């Protein structure tokens, strides 16, 4: 597991779960350039460890075919953890069949991007996911305050 460049002012934190070393490096590189602080997990177990030990991130970029624990299983687990259940999950997978996309979205993925991917499009989807999440969290917070009053 590695973290992003601390010298850069990071506005958002992203968890990247990707077992392909090359793609992991590329995602880490492009997300850091886009201003994210990146946590990189190379397999399902490392991802579980991050989820257990680190406060929720702003967005998760998740591969489906992972060693030890599959991406599908991770989606299910994340959606059951109280602090993490609303974190947007963008799936990045080489699985292109309709049933794979449907299964991931049904389990709770926010978006689905297939490999090979277009970096700028992926960044745009991540931005959208983070913005929607922030709006949701903001609204949720206001509702709780209103309920308390």
């Amino acid at each position: 597991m590695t973290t992003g460049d601390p010298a850069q002012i990071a506005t958002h934190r992203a968890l990247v779960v990707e077992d392909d070393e090359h793609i992991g490096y590329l995602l880490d590189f492009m997300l850091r350039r886009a201003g994210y602080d990146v946590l990189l997990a190379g397999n399902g177990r490392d991802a579980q460890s991050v989820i257990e030990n680190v406060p929720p991130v702003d967005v998760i970029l998740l591969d489906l075919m992972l060693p030890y624990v599959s991406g599908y299983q991770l989606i299910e687990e994340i959606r059951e953890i109280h602090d993490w259940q609303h974190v947007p999950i963008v799936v990045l997978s080489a699985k292109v069949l309709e049933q794979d996309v449907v299964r991931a979205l049904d389990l709770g993925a926010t978006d689905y991007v297939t490999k090979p991917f277009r970096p700028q499009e992926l960044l745009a989807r991540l931005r959208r996911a983070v913005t929607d999440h922030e709006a949701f969290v903001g609204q949720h917070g206001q509702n709780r305050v209103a309920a308390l009053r």
Partner: protein
Amino acid sequence: MLEWLFRSDFDGVTTAAIWSIAAVFVTTITLFVYTLGLRWVTIVGARRRTQFVAHWRGVFAAATLSEEDASSIALPHFGRKQRSDLLEEWNRARAAVDGAAAENLIFLGERLALPAITTDMLGSRRLKSRILAIQTLGNLRDLPSQPAIRELVTHDNTALSITAAIALVQICPDQAVQLLIPMIEKRSDWPRNRVSIFLHIAGSERISEPMYRAIRSADNQGKSLLLKFACQVETNVLDALVEDLIRESNDAGVLNAALKLVSGHSDVPRIAALIRHKTWFVRVQAARVLGRVGQPEHLALLESMLHDDEWWVRYRAAQAIASLPFLGPNKLRQLQNRQSDPFAADILQQAYAEVGLA
């Protein structure tokens, strides 16, 4: 100091023994030093390679993100021995991305003179170098190399020919599909996942017509093989193809493959005959299709399949019944209760239990 060794008062056997021990000792030391040297060379080589790859990985990542970086980034010198590492790394980067990022990497590849390097490597005697060259030329979409790659498609070596096939689709997809699709039937040595890759690269719109023609003109064995890739064809073409094959063929292999591709959006021809087909696995597929289509008029057909001699046919028919959207729990229970055949009632019980109705 070693005078004792050359003293003449030792007898011949003792002298020979002393000299043998000395020779073994020297040989052992030499081999030990040689092994350490080899290990050192390997470690240093691996470290240099890691540094080389890490450096170029950064260059390729930067080029992926920006056209400006791709055209202006400083390109370090690389030696002839480092070509393979560089090409492998460039190919990995290229395979990961699409769209503008891929164009940026192709531009960077041209700046690195990769087309010239790889065209040169095509004539190599090493298979690995040739495959790497073909793969790179494909990823570069290098049009001038098209004739050479086209020739390699028919090569006897499987790895060489399938890599050339994929490269050809990347370079000139329209011409490639016309050449390659009729070849799929004959090249049974091509791995299926690699065939799926080049069909996917070509795109469903481009492959639909040649696939339709190839399947229609193939013999039964060829039809069964080609139908395994037909899911990549456009939906309307696939529906028409499957309908035609089910209507015309009575071969169990063809019917089995065609029934697997029935979308369930339209009626299936000859379905009443197919549920009584002499081959049990055709009947199994027919039951599954009826479950997917899910029309009320097919309930009687599915019910009749609950009495089939083959367990799998009864099982799939029961599963299909349990999945019918217009039957609620009460109707499903009534259907089970009216079965006089204990095998039919048992198999329905099992299928209901699987969907939580037991």
